[in-house]
């Protein structure tokens, strides 16, 4: 009888070990641990601590704080400014991501051609990306300064066009903001797409050309599907960049006029560093984190290459 019991117990154990290798504390773990610990302490811990702070009423103007549950989240979702900020952020992110992807791909295709001077053009394309964002914001602030000394107005004056108040019109201000952030982000998309284009197999294009496929058909049915993984990474990165974008919008419009161009990141900044309401700022940060994750999952679902059976 005892033999039977041991026999029945041993059989499933062998089955499990055959499916999943047993975790063993070997030397690799100790080599990996410092790196993993540093990365987690810099990413996971702040994220979790931010979530914790979002459940408190911590404010730098006061000593001490207490647990307030979901009060900050209720405050956020019942805020009268929520509609405006959500609309601004959605418009800004959507425009920046789509424009960066489209223009980035177009420029990458151009640079992938063996045109005269393409090496210099490739180097120049990266320039906006290597400039510090705050500098980009301040430079464009000078360009679109409403004064006659502003470069934009000076250029207009050469064509006999009167002085423009660039940032006092909400639509124009948002357009400039999107244009500048897109300009800053395009080089990243170009680099990604150019790298992807250079790895595409030539034989597929040659076969398609022999079969009589037009230039558009080759792009539509070969280039685009093969660039899908690159597009996924590029779009995820540019979405994160646009959603969390603070430096350029803060330097350029600061959310103005009024709060007409206020984005969620500017709102977080104002609450945390102007009103010193760190608890509420952390709440906005947590909501941004969730929004980022949701968008990434969506992109993965839509853009991830499907494995055909």
């Amino acid at each position, binding site marked *: 009888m005892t033999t039977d019991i041991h026999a029945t117990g041993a059989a499933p154990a062998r089955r499990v070990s055959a499916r999943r290798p047993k975790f063993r504390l070997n030397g690799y773990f100790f080599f990996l641990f410092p790196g993993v610990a540093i990365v987690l302490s810099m990413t996971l811990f702040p994220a979790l601590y931010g979530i914790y702070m979002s459940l408190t*009423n911590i404010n730098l*103007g006061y000593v001490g704080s207490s647990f307030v549950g979901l009060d900050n989240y209720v405050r956020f979702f019942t805020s009268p400014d929520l509609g405006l900020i959500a609309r601004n952020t959605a418009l800004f992110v959507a425009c920046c991501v789509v424009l960066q992807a489209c223009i980035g791909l177009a420029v990458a295709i151009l640079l992938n051609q063996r045109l005269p001077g393409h090496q210099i053009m490739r180097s120049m394309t990266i320039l906006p990306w290597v400039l510090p964002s705050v500098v980009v914001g301040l430079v464009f602030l000078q360009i679109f300064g*409403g004064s006659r000394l502003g470069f934009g107005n000076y250029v207009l004056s050469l064509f006999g066009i009167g002085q423009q108040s660039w940032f*006092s019109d909400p639509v124009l201000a948002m357009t400039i903001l999107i244009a500048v952030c897109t300009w800053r982000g395009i080089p990243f998309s170009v680099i990604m797409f150019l790298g992807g284009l250079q790895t595409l197999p030539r034989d597929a294009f040659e076969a398609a050309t022999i079969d009589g496929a037009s230039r558009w058909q080759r792009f539509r049915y070969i280039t685009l599907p093969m660039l899908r993984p690159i597009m996924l990474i590029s779009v995820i990165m540019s979405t994160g960049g646009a959603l969390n974008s603070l430096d350029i919008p803060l330097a350029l419009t600061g959310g103005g*006029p*009024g709060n007409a161009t206020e984005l969620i990141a500017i709102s977080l900044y*104002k609450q945390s560093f*102007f009103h010193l309401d760190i608890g509420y700022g952390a709440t906005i940060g947590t909501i941004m984190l969730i929004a980022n994750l949701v968008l990434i999952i969506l992109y993965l679902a839509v853009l991830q290459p499907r494995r055909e059976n």
Partner: protein
Amino acid sequence: MISRFGLMAAASVLAIASSPAVAVELNILVTSGYSPAAGFVPAAEIHQRLYEEFQQENPDITLKYELLDPGPTGLQKLLTLASSNNLPDAVIVDGQWIARLVQSDVLQSLDTYWPAEDRADFHPAVIDAETIDGKPYAVMFQTGMRGLLYRPSTLQAIGLDEFPKTVDEMMAAAEQLKAQGMSAEMVPAKATDEPSTMHMLAIYWGLGGELVDAEGAPIFFEGENAAHLAQVYQMYHDLVASGAMLADVTTMDEGALRPYFYGGEVLAIGGSSSGVKQMWSELPDLENDMSVAPYPMPVAGTEPVTILGGFAYGLTVKDPERAEAAWKFIEFMTESENLGEVCEALGILPVRSSIWENNTFFSTTPIMQSYRKLYDGNMKTRPAVPIYTAISSAISSQLAGVISGAISPEDAVLAARDAVMPEYERQTTR
């Protein structure tokens, strides 16, 4: 043997007894702009020299300074140091924090240290701002004043001898200036930017408006106060609608207005006294052709109230011996001649009458003379209550809507109220 040890012990006791007193190590927390670590070289040099002179005059005191953020995080640091019993001996604080720091037992009364005759040299509004329950708690050593900076030569060019005192006079001047392609005035109206509110406040207070009551509760949206605030909003709207002011101001801080002034596109811009020296360095011509005027008022016969605000030295130590040493330092730094040199080097405005009278820079420079007129007029500090930041933000946030005509001045007051009161409730129920 015993006698030899006895002699050695006696000699040691005598040596200790005859040595000079142990030096007091004075720990002070100062903002970098008012310390030897200042980024502005003349400020660093004058503070370095004064610290050295203080050390020479007081060899029994060793001065040790650390830097404190001049912004709200500095206030938080002080409150945290107080809660952990780690306060320094003396500090430089924003005048706005005084009430809060007294409430939290951070600042100690200077009543027993600061002689009445010395206090009399300060502007009464300064003494009032740093006095709580009849006792002074800090020595304010400078102030920034906001007003309209203009070129007297431009004013004369349109045939005016003096700066317009009312909005109507300003509008009339604007008509003449339009012919020359100029606007009349520009003041910052950027949302959530405190200077935007400060320019408004001078006019609002001048009309008789109040932001908070004696208990610190917001009242700017009630009765007469609401009417005065709506009047100020209306004034901004009218100035822009008539072309006397450009709509661009809704996205501008004080620094952004300067190109308009430098390029001769506007007669006057709202600015702070603390930026005057920088403006001189950017456009040297201004040193001989720039003055400051009070804001034109929407109601004839009223005058704006200049906002008083600046940094102050405070005593944070309770131990009498250390407090004595800390007071010696404060007294030395705020003494008329020394403080005059600091104010002149930094281009900041003094709050001691003797400096205005005796220091050559302040008594002879034309623009400083025009600041002196503001100094001699009505001055008032911003309410030192936690809700002020929210009020300031809410009031300035409505400016763009009012100026563009998207919201009426009366509705803007109500919108500001709706933004402030939930925050006030949160603050009072903490």
